[in-house]
């Protein structure tokens, strides 16, 4: 298996607290960038609250910022956040499923740019993200869903791994992270 060079996370608004908990599990010496798309409104200030208990800096990137290992990149309101090889690509494509930032957009870009070197995590509760997660899985990415009422079914590559919030730590620990120097593809 290829070592993981990026972790992408998608979550509907209702799962904001779960994302905060996830971020507390990330080790300070994490050797890859973490990219988060969370449904949000125009006036939600999210980076500060999400970063409160996280050992890593949480930032809302500008377009074409480097993806630096050990940082958490949060999608800004009004833009889709895509990952290009080693950098951020923001997009003003129309909202999808009524959302911008969208979850499918992030997963799809991770599938294209990183493929098997991406790990993807989707918090359930919204139709957005399901198709993107399946696409990432089909490209060889390590994927899992967290939460109840998963209606995404099976992708072409079979069942998607399902986790309880308590199982997240173990899942993260099982991933084969890329060595720090090789964090970028």
């Amino acid at each position: 298996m290829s070592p993981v060079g990026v972790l992408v996370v998608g979550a509907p608004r209702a799962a904001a607290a779960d994302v905060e908990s996830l971020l507390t599990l990330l080790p300070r010496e994490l050797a890859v960038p973490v990219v988060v798309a969370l449904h949000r409104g125009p006036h939600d200030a999210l980076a500060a609250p999400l970063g409160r208990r996280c050992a890593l800096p949480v930032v809302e990137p500008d377009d074409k910022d480097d993806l630096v290992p050990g940082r958490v990149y949060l999608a800004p309101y009004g833009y889709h956040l895509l990952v290009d090889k080693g950098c951020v690509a923001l997009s003003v494509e129309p909202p999808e499923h009524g959302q911008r930032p969208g979850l499918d957009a992030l997963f799809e870009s991770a599938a294209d740019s990183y493929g098997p070197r991406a790990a993807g995590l989707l918090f359930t509760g919204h139709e957005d993200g399901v198709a993107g997660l399946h696409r990432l899985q089909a490209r060889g990415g390590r994927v899992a869903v967290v939460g109840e009422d998963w209606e995404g079914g099976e992708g072409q590559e079979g069942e998607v791994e399902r986790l309880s919030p308590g199982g997240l730590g173990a899942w993260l620990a099982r991933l084969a992270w890329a060595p720090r120097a090789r964090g970028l593809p």
Partner: protein
Amino acid sequence: MSTGGASAELESIEVDLLLEGVARQWGFDLRSHARPLLLRRLRRHLREERLDTFSALQARVLHDGEALEGLLRTLSCTPTSLFSDPAFFRDFRARVVPVLRTWPSVRVWHAGCGTGEDTYALAILLLEEGLWGRCRLYASDSSEGLLADARTGVLPLPGEEDARRYVEAGGKGALTDYYTRDGNWALLQPKLRDSIFFTQHNLATDGSFNEFHVIVCRDTLLTFNRTLHNRVHGRLFESLARFGFLCLGRKESVARTPHASAYEELEGSGRIFRRVT
């Protein structure tokens, strides 16, 4: 390799061939666009055209100029309503307009105008601020099809939401002052439309065409990859007079471009930069 990996490989080959074909046949080089974004737009276009493969799209686009225009239209993601980002127009009024008042004449370039919504919003603002008489507003896009739409000065009829954004943008009258209604359409005042110079210009390949005091280029460069993004910033820099203003999108910056040190960001503004050297 999994089946997904094999089909991804094939799709990648087809996309490369399509882009090569478009560049050689039509002179539009999309190979320097941000790849993940380009792939998403191309897939959307494929679905809308009800085609199965990029090879089929390639066959169509190479032989038919209108099919190319359709493709360029899908790739463009400019705002579809007036004053779509009211905070920018508010900042422009507060921070840029007072300086423009002190200059005898002002040339403004809106680069990447798409179907013109932001161009017309800017024109309304300049009119309200009493600057219309000494401003020349140039608006450019790479797509002739989008420009043709922009030139008509016809927009979907603005609603309550548009009126609210107009007020939030610091509007001094009523949005309805600037158009006449025709069914579900708004015909913008001829004095706005006729004083804007719409011109075809491809930021990726064409050089500087004048010196400007204000360049508005918001969220247009998101579509380019880093190399082209930086090259285009070089062109914008060459086209901007000293002490002129460069207005970028809310999440764009000159920080990583070759001319970063030549600009100062206006504090508390939504990414308005002033050329200082």
